[in-house]
């Protein structure tokens, strides 16, 4: 079994799936000869040619829209790359009003089997506009799947799952994890079901719910506090929409304490929804306030190194929040 980092897992899976399924087409800015600015598509243009790996005009609205138009024909299964999630917003109208609403408004007559990949997240000196976490906007939208795998194993398994769906999937990849996170990736054809969270650590004292880079920090934090006798369930949501309510509720009903951790700003975010679910459906089991830990409610990660450091979550901050909640 090969050890890969996230970007290798992604690239390898793209290649394997394209070899298998001639309907898969990749479009986006610089995905061709350049192989993508993060190298997700490196070598694919050379292997599959310019009819399957298509460099597009610099225009996200139409990158998504043409993806929709290709998907509607049923001839192709487009995977479009948004170079940075920060730049997905010109396409917001197309994603919301067209991709996500097509099936509903046509009673299933038209469907949009489209995957939109978008690197997101901070910690890479990207400043305000190359660091944004944008998942909250999309998690609100019925008709979309929104996923955020953060291990090489899940990237392969969830990309393969996404390819089997007949609906639009937003596939968010935390760019800081691209080279930071390594792990085993089996060669066989497994899938990681969309809509299912993973339990990364187990414990009875509290539940930490997270995803993305923050989830890796949460696991480290859990290991730190475990040494102090605080044992936590660490849930990796993996899928942002639909949320795995069962996984969340089962754990919180067991521990009675929930800490929700993510890099996105908190107001009306994924953590709001998780908290609302817990507050409504696990109320009787709660032993402590439903707690959230996120960066401050500011636009995005500042560029200046000390400010970026102060903004980002890390195992220390999470461990501290876990201690406080455990002590409640």
């Amino acid at each position, binding site marked *: 079994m090969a050890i890969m980092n996230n970007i290798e897992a992604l690239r390898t899976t793209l290649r394997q799936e394209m070899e298998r399924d001639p309907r898969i087409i990749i479009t986006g800015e610089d995905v061709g000869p350049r192989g993508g600015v993060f190298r997700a598509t490196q070598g694919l243009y050379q292997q599959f040619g310019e009819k399957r790996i298509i460099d597009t005009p610099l225009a996200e609205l139409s990158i998504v829209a043409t993806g929709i138009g290709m998907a509607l024909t049923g001839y192709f299964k487009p995977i479009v790359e948004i170079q940075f999630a920060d730049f997905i917003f010109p396409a917001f109208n197309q994603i919301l009003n067209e991709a996500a609403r097509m099936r*509903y408004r046509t009673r299933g007559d038209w469907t949009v089997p489209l995957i939109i990949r978008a690197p997101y997240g901070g910690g890479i000196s990207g400043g305000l506009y190359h660091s944004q976490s944008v998942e909250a906007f999309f998690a609100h939208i019925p008709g979309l799947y929104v996923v955020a795998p953060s291990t090489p194993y899940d990237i392969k398994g969830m990309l393969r799952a996404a390819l089997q769906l007949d609906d639009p999937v937003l596939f968010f990849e935390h760019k800081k994890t691209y080279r930071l996170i390594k792990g085993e990736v089996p060669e066989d054809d497994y899938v990681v079901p969309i809509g299912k969270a993973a339990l990364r650590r187990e414990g009875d004292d509290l539940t930490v719910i997270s995803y993305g880079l923050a989830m890796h920090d949460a696991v480290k934090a859990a290991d730190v506090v475990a040494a102090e006798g605080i044992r936590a369930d660490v849930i990796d949501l993996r899928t942002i929409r639909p949320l795995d309510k069962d996984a969340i509720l089962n754990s919180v009903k067991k521990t009675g304490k929930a800490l929700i951790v993510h890099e996105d700003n908190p107001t009306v975010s994924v953590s709001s929804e998780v908290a609302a679910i817990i507050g409504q459906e696990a109320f009787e089991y709660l032993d402590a306030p439903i707690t959230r830990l996120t960066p401050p409610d500011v636009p995005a990660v500042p560029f200046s190194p000390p400010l970026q450091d102060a903004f980002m979550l890390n195992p220390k901050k999470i461990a501290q929040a876990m201690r406080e909640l455990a002590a409640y």
Partner: protein
Amino acid sequence: MATAARKSQKSQQSERPSDKLTDDQLLQLYKSMVLGRKVDERSWVMNRQGRAPFHISGIGHEAIQVAAAATLRPGYDWFYPYYRDLAFVLAMGMKPVDHLRGLLGKAGDPSSNGIQMPSHYSNAKLRIGSISSPVGTQVPIAAGTALASKLKGTDEVTVVCLGEGSTSQGDFHEGLNWAGVHKLPFICIVQNNQYAISVPMEKEMAVKNVADRAIAYGVKGLVVDGNDVLACYDVMFEAVQRARNGKGATLVEAKTYRVTPHSSDDDDRTYRSRKEVEKWKKRDPIMLFEKVLFERGILTEDLRQEIDAWAIQEVDQAEEEAINSPYPDVSEMTKHLYGPMPNWEEA
């Protein structure tokens, strides 16, 4: 004899694609226009009777619509209409009852089964794409469909319609740009009725012809009198041929006028003169075509009335069917959000 008259007239002109249309085909065009008009007029009546909360009309736009349809292969070519394309979708194979069920939010309408507002057409079997309300979005989507056809190696053509006002949207720009870059089998028909609701053309853009915008994308631009059905046919014929033969995309601008208010919610007296409207009513595309058909001896007063009666009967029957159709079950509201999930077992 009628046919002889036509032939001689023809030989005096240079060869036009519409010259090749048989009398039957010409009558078919005419009937399509009349049917579209009658369904549209009936929709207004049903709205004024309080039975339909909303109607948006294509009256005045029929010529370009039925002409375009006549140059396409329904169910083979891809068509992304806009909300005034009633006559167009009928000519492509949708039925009056489809529109009228939609008008009343009744079950059985293939467009959306009562989920969307009226005139938001869709028919997957006929390859008629689904209209949403935000204007312009369908242009780059249509470009994507045209790209798929091209990559797939078919000779399908994709046609997309919108109003001139909607060309101000970024979507239009981006879609046309793709059509140019990839030399797509793509035709964008702008039905230029000179207003975006109340906003006149000169406040929408600083060019005389929307088709002049084609040059910015390396695609062909053609202007046509949108009330002259045969001229529309000629222009569309050329555009479809270019597309079908891999010669690239065309932006067709059909100059026309909407003689009705923007929709049943509008009062157009606040922004344009009755004189202007009356002037255009005298250029009604059906009237203009009747004149040609009379001149050519293809249409007689008897036949005209027969066609009128036929169309009205079609509409009567469709109206009855629509009125007698049930509403969709309220359970529909929460259906069709996602397709079925595969039965995954995690490894």
